C-alpha cells in the first residue's frame, strides 16, 4: 500500500531559515518512523498569498513529497495542525495522476516511434509491386 503524496504547507513569513529546517527535519523523522520515506523537499520560498490567512499576506511555501500509507498522512496532518507557525496546508495524492501521465506519455512515445519506420516498408513494398 505505497502511495505518493504531495504535502504543501505555508509557514508564517517571519519564520527564520533555521526554524524551517528544524520543522522539516522533524516532519521527515515522523515520516521515516512510521514506515514511509521522503522523496523530495522543496522550499518554494516566500510568496504573496492570494488572500489573507491568519492576518498574513505573505507566506513561505514548502513542498514535501512523501511515500507511504494513509496513516502516515493522518499523522503528518495532525502534526501540521498542531504546529503553530504553519498557517495552511494541503495534501494531494499524486501517484495515480502520475500513473495516468506515464501511460499517456508511453502511448505518445509509441506513436512517435512507429510512424517513421512504417511508411518506409510500405513504400518499399509498393515500389516492389510496381516493378514486379
Amino acid at each position, binding site marked *: 500500500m505505497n502511495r505518493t503524496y504531495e504535502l*504543501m504547507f*505555508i509557514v508564517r513569513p517571519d519564520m527564520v531559515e533555521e526554524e524551517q529546517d528544524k520543522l522539516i527535519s522533524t516532519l521527515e523523522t515522523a515520516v521515516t518512523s512510521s514506515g514511509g520515506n521522503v522523496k523530495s523537499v522543496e522550499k518554494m520560498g516566500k*510568496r*504573496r*498569498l*492570494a*488572500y489573507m*490567512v491568519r492576518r498574513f*499576506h505573505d*507566506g513561505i511555501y514548502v*513542498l514535501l513529497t512523501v511515500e507511504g500509507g494513509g496513516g502516515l498522512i493522518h499523522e503528518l496532518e495532525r502534526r501540521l495542525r498542531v504546529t503553530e507557525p504553519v498557517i*495552511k*496546508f*494541503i495534501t*494531494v495524492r499524486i501517484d495515480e*495522476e502520475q500513473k*495516468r*501521465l506515464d501511460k*499517456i*506519455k508511453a502511448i*505518445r512515445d509509441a506513436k512517435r516511434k512507429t510512424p517513421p519506420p512504417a511508411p518506409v516498408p510500405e513504400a518499399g513494398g509498393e515500389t516492389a509491386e510496381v516493378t514486379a
Partner: protein
Amino acid sequence: MTEEIRATTAASSGGERPAGGDRPSGGDRPSFGDRPDRGERRPSRPGGPGGREGGRKYFRRKKVCKFCVEKIEAINYKDVRLLAQFVAESGKIVPRRLTGVCTPHQRRLSSAIKQARNIALLPFAGRAS
C-alpha cells in the same frame, strides 16, 4: 471559384457574340466587359455560398481546447500561471463555453483551481492581492 469566373466569362463572351455580330467595333468589348463583370461578382460572393471575408457580420472562430492542442496533460494546482488563464478577474472559473476547453480537461482544470484556492495560490473571490 475559378470555375465560376470561367463560366461567367464564357457566358458573357457567348452573349457578346451576337452583339459583336451586330456591331463590328465591338472587338474591345469582351475584355472591357469582363472586368466590371468580375468587379461586380466579387462583392456579391461573400453573401453567397463562398462567404469568406467580410460577408458575415460576426465570424466566430471555432474554439479549441488549449490542453488538447498544446498537449498539456498535467494540470497541476501548483501551476498558477496556467490556471490563472482560466480564472476570471472576479476569481471565478471561466465556463467551458467561453474558453472552449473540452469536458475532461475542464474537469481536471476546475479541481486543480479549487486545490490552488485552498492553498492560497489563487483567490476565492477578487483579484490576487
